[in-house]
């Protein structure tokens, strides 16, 4: 539902809040916080997996030099 359907009516009425779905801010906040927490959990798990895989390769401190691309 549009919060504003007529600029003339809105401005004449002194309405200042113009974003859509006024009153549902709590719902958007819950979704955003849930995503934020899930992001941390998934990122940490992914990082652990990547680190374990790399550690198992047993590479030395200079081995990366063989992987320097020249393009």
């Amino acid at each position: 539902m549009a919060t504003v359907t007529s600029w003339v009516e809105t401005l004449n009425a002194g309405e200042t809040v113009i974003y859509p779905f006024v009153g549902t801010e709590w719902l958007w906040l819950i979704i955003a916080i849930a995503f934020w927490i899930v992001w941390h959990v998934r990122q940490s798990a992914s990082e652990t997996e990547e680190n374990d895989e790399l550690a198992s390769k047993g590479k030395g401190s200079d081995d990366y030099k063989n992987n320097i691309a020249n393009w």
Partner: protein
Amino acid sequence: MDNELSALSVIFTEFYYWVTVVLMFLIHVGFCMYEVGVSRHKNHLHTLMKNTMVIPLVTVTWFFFGWWIYWAMINGPWIGTSIMDGNSGLQLGGGYGANEVANPMSPIMAINLGDHINGVFWAAFLLFSWTAASIVSGAVIERIRMSAFAILAIAIGSVFWTIDASWGWHFDGWMVKVLGYHDAYASGVIHACAGGFALGVLTVLGPRIGKFASDGTPRNIGPRNPWLVTVGLFLIYTGFWGFYAACNIPIFDLGPEYGLDGTFFTATNIYVTPTTLSGITFNFLMSLSGGLLMGYWVSKGDPFWTYSSGLAGIIAASAGNDLYHPLQAMIIGMIGVYVAYKMHYWVERKFKIDDAVGAVAVHGYAGIVGLVICGFVLWGYPSSGYEGYAAINPIGMIIGAIIMFGLLGFLPGWIIAKVLNGMGKLRIPHEVELAGMDFNYMEAAKADEDAVTADQK
């Protein structure tokens, strides 16, 4: 905005803060370039991404709760008494200090035709928050887990510096009222706090492999790319101009505010005491120059330290740069740099602290020096134009430095790092540190190159 003049004033203030935010974005660009320049080839991309992700992580948490904390903690809680009690005429928006505005669900935390300031003010403070997290980011490169840094960045960027700003960087903050704390351009509230936080983390994180010889002698690692470091620090200087402007209120009538006879339009600092944009421009450049001169001298022309010392010079003078004479700003910048440089190497040797970019020195030690000196040089100045505030004094500023660097900096950094370390989530595995965090990326890129080259033959 019921007439052209008041509309012009409001829109000017809105645009002013908006411009400072854009300028301050360069600080983050500079920090990214600087960190990558200091890191080794095998860690470039992880180093870059670590600092880049400060932007979204601190931004969303600053929206969720950081801005709310700033307005919620002014009295401690339970330490001071707010002057925004409705009788003083300072209570804004039906309860600004009570967080009706800074609440993330408030209609004013969005596009609102009745407000032109909250968003740009929120953003200006947010850019300070990125800086606080970036300061820590540089110190811990090449061995911290991204997931650990993400938590630490949010802790310093959206929680702990925010509390200290609420206490000591707000016209109604209890430290200003009770201690006479004065920190106009954030020697303490950002730099000492973030520097202390970085030191707390480093104490637990430990040095990079090979940083110290078996007899404890420190070795220099990098910088690998001095040009990135150079451009990065120049960009940080540039963004710092925006930071200085953002710390001011550009136009304010102190007449009714202070009960003066008539009007007195001026720029003010965050405490609503008068200064001028012109005057702080003198002091910014003179403290930068004092820092560069001392840095070049004490480091015998080392480019890394000379550039960093320009920054440290500004940081040391920042607490009182709203009132200092330019020559005072220059000399205070020089003293701050000298102490920061000497402290860096003493702490490195004594406690085996590997601060990869000198962040604790440039921000932490220079910030502390700035606060202490400010207490003496500005001794007796009123910390506010409102009634009942303590005057600026050395004891209040020394206590303030301890709160900033120790209580809200070092201590939470150390505790969070200890917890993460206890869970095995703080540091990357030894084998990964040796191989380099970018090993897999580089290996894949090399394989792609070999495949393309083979096809071209």
